[in-house]
């Protein structure tokens, strides 16, 4: 019998704000324990929450970017449960009237090779709601220590429909969400810092069966790759169990990334009874078209749209766009040069995705600190196009530019890299090369095209690398024909 997996994800994403979702304490990561706390964050008697407007804007932006409906009205509910990381022992969240309804995430699967775009599809969302994050537990042998710095950080919960079928799809789903959030400036989605966290619900059923299999909740998925590996492991495990004729029971499992396997956390306990009810401390939110439109205007072109446009408008290959587009800054850098000289777009793209990225990473520099401006890069590409310098020399010019911030012409001038000979001189060098190297000449004439390279090398040497190889090749072929 064939089996298939059905997967739904619950993705928690922190919204980047200066202060907490319901109080004026700072939000942040990496601070000394219990320094980002105030009466609200600690749940002290008498403390009261007040909504952070920017957090609301953030989730509306996320919702619009992920194609959700933003209803006119939403409210706050309390989800009651006792846990040491929860300061009030209730979470302020949205139960039956979330701020974002429905929606979908466009995902891209891996292509056959890195040069080929993979297939795209839409994964349906159930909803996105806003809630407060909780504190952090640090576990020790005998006890646990609680730090409430993280508590009350604005947190979105993005809930997908059970609409995915593989670890790879889940991977693509999270990647797409992450990039959208980064593009929109809503969150940096750094999973190591807990800015994005995912839980998966996985069930396996025989192909053709309508109803879903027993739901296994998978926790502790600490990276996007962890999500993929955990889910794939779980699907395999569940399928094997079913094949052995065992039945699955609803339970929570955790992914152990070190051991590369999942382990049982708890069997299905009594259904949680969260006793949701409207939070009497917070007023509801009414959202009108003006608000929605204001936020909609703040949403930049989204990654997949940008990628498609780059490929079409600049006629650059998928492989370049797939390096450029995931990095919003890099893609903007590219485009501010490319739009001034669309014909040079591919060359610009090559420089950005190869030389520039390499130098940035080797010198550990951020793009924002880079000394080469997009215009500077464009000037370099243009002198190459005009044949002023060769690509070979351009490589060195680029590095000089990168280090000093000079323009291409400044570097070429200063280092005397401009060819100091005319085409007649090149022709003479070609003739000399032919005369001095009978062996490769013979080989070429007997059909070995590659033999031309030896002659080319000689000419380049004579020109101290400044001759244009394309022109030299043409001249040599002329001489030998």
């Amino acid at each position: 019998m064939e089996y298939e997996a059905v997967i739904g994800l619950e993705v928690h994403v922190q919204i980047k704000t200066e202060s907490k979702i319901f109080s004026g304490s700072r939000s942040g990561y990496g601070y000394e324990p219990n320094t980002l706390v105030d009466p609200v964050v600690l749940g002290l008697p008498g403390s009261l929450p007040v909504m952070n407007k920017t957090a609301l804007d953030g989730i509306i932006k996320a919702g619009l970017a992920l194609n959700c409906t933003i209803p006119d009205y939403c409210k706050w509910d309390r989800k009651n449960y006792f846990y040491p990381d929860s300061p009030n022992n209730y979470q302020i969240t949205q139960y039956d009237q979330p701020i974002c309804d429905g929606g979908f995430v466009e995902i891209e699967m891996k292509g056959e090779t890195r040069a080929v775009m993979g297939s795209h599809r839409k994964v349906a969302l159930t909803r996105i709601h806003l809630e407060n994050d909780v504190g952090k537990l640090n576990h020790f042998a005998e006890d646990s220590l609680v730090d409430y710095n993280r508590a009350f950080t604005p947190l979105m919960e993005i809930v997908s429909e059970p609409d995915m079928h593989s670890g790879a799809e889940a991977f693509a789903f999270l990647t797409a969400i992450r990039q959208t959030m980064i593009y929109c400036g809503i969150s940096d989605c750094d999973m190591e810092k807990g800015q994005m966290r995912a839980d998966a619900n996985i069930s396996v059923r025989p192909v053709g069966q309508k109803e879903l299999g027993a739901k296994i909740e998978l926790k502790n998925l600490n990276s996007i790759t962890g999500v993929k590996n955990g889910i794939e492991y779980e699907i395999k495990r569940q399928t094997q169990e079913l094949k052995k004729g065992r039945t699955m029971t609803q339970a929570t499992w955790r992914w152990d990334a070190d051991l590369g396997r999942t382990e049982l956390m708890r069997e299905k306990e009594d259904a949680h009874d969260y006793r949701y009810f409207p939070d009497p401390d917070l007023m509801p939110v009414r959202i009108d078209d003006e608000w929605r439109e204001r936020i909609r205007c703040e949403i930049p072109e989204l990654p997949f749209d940008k990628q498609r446009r780059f490929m079409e408008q600049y006629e650059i290959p998928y492989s370049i766009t797939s390096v450029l587009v995931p990095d919003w800054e890099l893609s903007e850098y590219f485009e501010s040069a490319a739009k001034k000289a669309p014909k040079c777009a591919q060359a610009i793209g090559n420089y950005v995705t190869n030389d520039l990225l390499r130098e940035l990473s080797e010198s550990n520099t951020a793009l924002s600190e880079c000394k080469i401006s997009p215009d500077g890069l464009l000037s370099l590409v243009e002198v190459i196009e005009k044949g002023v310098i060769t690509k070979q020399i351009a490589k060195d010019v680029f590095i000089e530019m990168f280090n000093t911030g000079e323009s291409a012409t400044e570097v070429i001038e200063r280092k005397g890299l401009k060819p100091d000979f005319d085409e007649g001189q090149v022709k003479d060098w070609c003739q000399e090369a032919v005369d001095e190297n009978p062996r490769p000449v013979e080989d070429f004439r007997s059909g070995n095209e590659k033999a031309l390279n030896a002659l080319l090398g000689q000419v380049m040497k004579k020109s101290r690398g400044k001759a244009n190889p394309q022109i030299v090749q043409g001249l040599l072929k002329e001489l030998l024909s």
Partner: protein
Amino acid sequence: MAEAPHIDIDKVAELARIALTDEEKTKFSSQLESILGYIDKLNELDTTNVEPTAHPHSVENVWREDRATSELPTSEALKNAPKQRQNMFVVPKVVE
């Protein structure tokens, strides 16, 4: 809800996280059942199409701008802690 309400006191006490003695269980369940019996009179009322009241005033969109104002010093945050270590609150080991 025609018959007298019955409370599963064990379940309720567990949800509320309050340990009760057997004696308390008996006492509280009978008291709560009598209160619930009284409360049942609400069923005389037809409330179809009546909007629920969650707040005495129907004000909407009460928020603040996203600005960090102030925090409690850590010493103040921890000064009432029943047990603390390394500027954190000590709790019994939580098994995930």
